[in-house]
């Protein structure tokens, strides 16, 4: 729960920027729908006035909803990640760090054991990525399947399966590589720019 709250803080800040981006580009997003028309094979047509610029109130509402959604999503994801870590690290080993007490009485994380970080995050990402990619594929089948013609439905579903495997395993491999790189670079470079420094307290 505490990690979920910390994630929500990141969502709170990120959501402001994300919401602002939506706010500023919302009219363009709406207009992009028109570009879909040449690919339509069904009888569905979009009304020409669909590309009208939304009013200020609508855009402010979208901004607010996007912000709240970011906070809620970050909160839920934080709880999921923390719960998965607590559960899986029992079997695969905890994340190991080296702590150093500085002169101000704060702890510096001077070193992450790369393999312990990569192992845990890779396993978590395999589970989360599986769910995310299944949702993406289901969404894309429903969305694109409504107006795209693949000639044969088998080709469409085989393509979807292939896309799912690439999306899931590919992102997991990329995530592992990126995590290893970031952890290794942190160990290497944090001595020059300063380590992550935290004040630890004891929970009463």
């Amino acid at each position, binding site marked *: 729960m*505490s990690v979920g*709250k*910390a994630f929500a803080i990141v969502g709170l*800040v990120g959501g402001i920027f994300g919401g602002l981006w939506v706010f500023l580009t919302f009219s363009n997003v709406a207009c992009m729908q028109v570009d879909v028309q040449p690919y339509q094979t069904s009888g569905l047509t979009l009304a020409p006035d669909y590309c009208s610029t939304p009013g200020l109130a609508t855009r402010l509402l979208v901004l607010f909803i996007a912000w709240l959604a970011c906070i809620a999503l970050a909160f839920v994801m934080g709880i999921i990640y923390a719960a998965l870590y607590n559960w899986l690290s029992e079997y695969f080993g905890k994340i190991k760090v*080296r702590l150093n007490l500085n002169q101000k009485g*704060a702890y510096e994380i001077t070193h992450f054991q790369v393999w312990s970080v990569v192992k845990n995050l890779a396993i978590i990402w395999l589970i989360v990525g599986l769910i995310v990619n299944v949702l993406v594929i289901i969404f894309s089948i429903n969305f694109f399947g409504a107006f795209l013609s693949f000639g044969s439905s088998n080709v469409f579903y085989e393509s979807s399966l292939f896309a799912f495997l690439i999306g899931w395993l590919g992102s997991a491999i990329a995530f592992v590589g990126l995590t290893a790189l970031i952890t290794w670079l942190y160990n290497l470079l944090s001595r020059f720019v*300063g380590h*992550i420094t935290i*004040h630890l*307290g004891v929970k009463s």
Partner: protein
Amino acid sequence: MYTVQRVYIWNWAKLCALFNIIGILIYAVIFVFIGFLGGNFDLAVFGHGSLSGFGVILAMVLLIGILSGLGFGALIAAIYNGLSKVFGPIEVEISFEPENIPEAAPEVNSQIQQT
């Protein structure tokens, strides 16, 4: 059980800026690599057709990356420090390896001795 009471804003900001720089440089290498693979140097230098044009763009992006990294990192850390007092800090369980117990802060040291 320990709680992360406060994070150091400046350290966090510097680390965010550092990783922004690394990320931008990796992207730059990938763009150039794709451009060369495609046999199109114009594409490699973002369509500016010259190395100096590419350098200027890269320097600008790096500057923006450094500033945004500093700003975003500091903002996140500051908001965490502020809001964690209201909503509660991150709680972590730390177990020390017997041969590698760090020197402990007074308030933590007393807890370690008790446990």
